[in-house]
């Protein structure tokens, strides 16, 4: 028998796209009920271009090879006590943040893509989303397994899951994914598939993984590398969904634009913690946050938005603001955590003189003028035994849930930005015009935000009885996982292992 050679596209059509059919016995809307409520118009799912034509058997095969290699390295890592090879135990605090704040986001993404992978009406898009759901499960599980070894030797990892539902700074990330998951399927795809995966991945994963590479963290860098080809698929899916929505109907353009504006901002606010990690937490620095932002966003993102112009999509109008904020972000964030680290599951410290010099050099416009004096004062106080902690509870932004720490960088960087609006007789507070706009577009949604500080005041975090109760509620191991690195059990153990007094 003569056998025709099928090209990939035809083969994928036959193997995948043809599986679905036109319903005769039920209303298709009852099987895919969430396709319309967001106002998105899909005229023809057949126009969907499959971003990667991966069959399931090929998926198993490639992924199994990657898993096999990855776990071989994990095994070697723990057998050889790989944690001893990091540059300094202070570094480990960066991956405590990763496990407590980022990894649970992978599971949230898994769940969101399962939802869209079930509910989008087009099979091509559905299967791509399903595979991403499976990938995101991979990510949280490989991350847990990588951190499993660190957890045996350092404090601050062990309650990552419990903390994810409760702790004040982690709720920033949780609210981001909750926001996306509670939206409709198309907004979710734009939020995570496009804004997060396509535009921001380089600014979240790459800095963490490079930080790991520069600081001798074999376990983290290995899962980073191993996830790279997954991420490449996620990015193509993110771009495809945007193009598809924009090409389907012109009425989709303003909706998608609104989502891009919202989600780039939401994602950008989360990056505050990455900025701080890069500038303050890595004993061996990769590059400054400012440099990373310029490289990965201003250059790469600029090209992307040029590409989308032909669909009528514009770069969000707040890009001048974020350009100005790059000079300040990391400094404001580390200061916030330093002064509140009695309530964090990682340690903080005052930058060494050498690090202060590095920051001065990287941020010539702002560091010496606004931030260096703060650290010098903090050091003076700490030397006198008066280490400064913020006693009060900060006010949080109703949208991004970050404390009001951002300043008016375009006018006077000493002034904190406060915005507020009234909705149904109640006043709500914001860190920025952008967060206020996001709220005002969907106030019914954001009035429900589970704001950690409000919840503490309402007695919902361990009941009345002060911060001690809250720490219990967090399962925060006081005196071990929190406060200064200097003098912590982490430091003490590290010194013993390394044979330094």
């Amino acid at each position: 028998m003569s056998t025709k050679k099928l090209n990939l596209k035809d083969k994928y059509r036959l193997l995948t796209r043809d599986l679905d059919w036109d319903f005769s016995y039920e209303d298709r809307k009852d099987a895919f009920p969430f396709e319309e409520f967001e106002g998105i118009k899909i005229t023809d799912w057949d126009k969907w271009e499959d971003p990667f034509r991966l069959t399931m058997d090929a998926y198993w095969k490639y992924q199994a090879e990657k898993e096999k290699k990855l776990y071989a390295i994990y095994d070697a890592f723990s057998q050889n006590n790989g944690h001893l090879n990091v540059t300094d135990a202070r570094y480990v605090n960066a991956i405590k943040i990763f496990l407590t704040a980022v990894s649970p986001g992978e599971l949230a993404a898994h769940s969101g893509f399962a939802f869209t992978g079930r509910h989008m009406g087009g099979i091509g898009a559905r299967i791509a989303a399903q595979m991403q759901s499976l990938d995101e499960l991979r990510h949280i599980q490989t991350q847990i397994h990588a951190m499993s070894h660190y957890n045996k030797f350092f404090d601050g990892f062990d309650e990552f899951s419990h903390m994810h539902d409760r702790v004040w700074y982690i709720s920033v990330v949780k609210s981001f994914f909750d926001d996306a998951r509670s939206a409709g399927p198309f907004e979710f795809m734009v939020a995570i598939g496009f804004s997060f995966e396509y535009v921001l991945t380089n600014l979240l994963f790459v800095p963490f993984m490079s930080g790991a590479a520069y600081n001798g963290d074999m376990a983290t860098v290995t899962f980073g590398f191993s996830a790279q080809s997954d991420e490449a698929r996620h990015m193509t899916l993110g771009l495809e969904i945007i193009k598809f929505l924009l090409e389907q109907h012109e009425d989709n353009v303003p909706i998608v634009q609104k989502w891009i504006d919202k989600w780039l901002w939401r994602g950008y606010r989360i990056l505050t913690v990455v900025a701080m990690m890069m500038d303050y937490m890595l004993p061996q620095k990769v590059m400054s946050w400012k440099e990373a932002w310029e490289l990965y966003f201003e250059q790469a993102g600029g090209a992307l938005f040029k590409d989308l112009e032909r669909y009528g999509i514009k770069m969000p109008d707040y890009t001048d603001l974020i350009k100005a904020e790059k000079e300040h972000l990391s400094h404001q964030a580390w200061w916030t955590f330093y002064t509140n680290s009695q309530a964090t599951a990682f340690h903080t410290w005052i930058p060494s003189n050498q690090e202060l010099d590095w920051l001065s050099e990287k941020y010539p416009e702002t560091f010496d003028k606004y931030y260096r004096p703060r650290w010098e004062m903090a050091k003076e106080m700490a030397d006198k035994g008066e280490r400064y902690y913020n006693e009060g509870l900060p006010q949080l932004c109703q949208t991004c849930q970050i404390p009001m720490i951002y300043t008016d960088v375009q006018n006077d960087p000493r002034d904190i930005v406060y915005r507020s609006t009234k909705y149904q007789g109640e006043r709500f507070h914001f860190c920025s015009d952008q967060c206020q706009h996001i709220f005002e577009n969907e106030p019914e949604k954001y009035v429900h935000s589970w704001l950690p500080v409000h919840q503490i005041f309402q007695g919902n975090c361990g009941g009345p009885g002060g911060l001690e109760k809250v720490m219990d509620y967090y399962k925060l191991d006081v005196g071990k996982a929190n406060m200064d690195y200097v003098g912590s059990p982490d430091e003490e153990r590290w010194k013993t292992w390394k044979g330094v007094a």
Partner: protein
Amino acid sequence: MTIEIKTAKMDTIRNTFGHIARRFGDKPATRYQEATYDIAAQTNFHYKPLWDQDHELNDPSRTAITMEDWYALKDPRQFYYGTYVQNRARMQENAESNFGFFDKRDLADKLPEGMKERLIKHLIPLRHVEHTANLNNMYCTAYANYCTAVAQATLFEGMDRFGNAQYYARIGLAIDGNTGDSLAAAKEEWMNNPIWQGLRAYCEKTLTIDDWFETFIAQNIVLDTLVDNLYFEQYDAWLTENNAGDILMLTEFMRERSRESQRWSDSLLKTVINENRQNADQVKSWISTWRIRAQSALEPLANDLLSDDALAEAYSALATRLKKIGLAD
């Protein structure tokens, strides 16, 4: 003599994560445990889903089934991502070599007269049934998201079923010289041949079920047991008797996989009905609804595929399975 390599053992400050230690004690945990238990968000959700304002994002009350501890529904195969894909990679390697063998020996040409047409009419349309199973298991994953033990297992099941659908399509390509004509013809059967319409209606109906555990019952318990018996027991025997046993090589993946996955769905259902009376009653009521629906759905197909008593045999296989689970009627 074995030489033991000495590695430096260091004192650990704990053996596992807090949530794992609270379940199993502070001792070294398995990778399945750390990858599975208590990692899903449980409380303090920020917003109500716009698509379901009556529930939380992760919400056990989306099903009528109740569990003191949902993580009791663990997977006896202990599949997490890594073990799952590695297991399936081995199985697909075997499937690949079966398809390769079939192709290399020109076994398609050696099928008896009229057999290809029969396969197009009876076997290839199953890919649409598998596609339904993919969607139904994804549905379970989307709504059982509060318990990773369940959500990941139904995700694996869903992806498996998509894999099955593609293997059925490849059987079509293996017998039509890669033209895809057999697939178009099989879809025509699925859409228009009266023998398939009952099953197609059943499939469409399962996609509109609200309670995800009812979806699980309608798909993974009732329909799968019946279809598996019809195809992997009775039709397999028929193919063998009719000199088309080579086809069994091409369905080996599906057959083996189904056997393995039943271990999981059996154990899950058993735990659910043993949890409390209400669960058992609810499951029984769903089963009786769907087994009646399946009866009329499958009758024309079973009669045409095999004989007039084929479906009765499949129903006795279902009864045996249910009895084993503890659901004798």
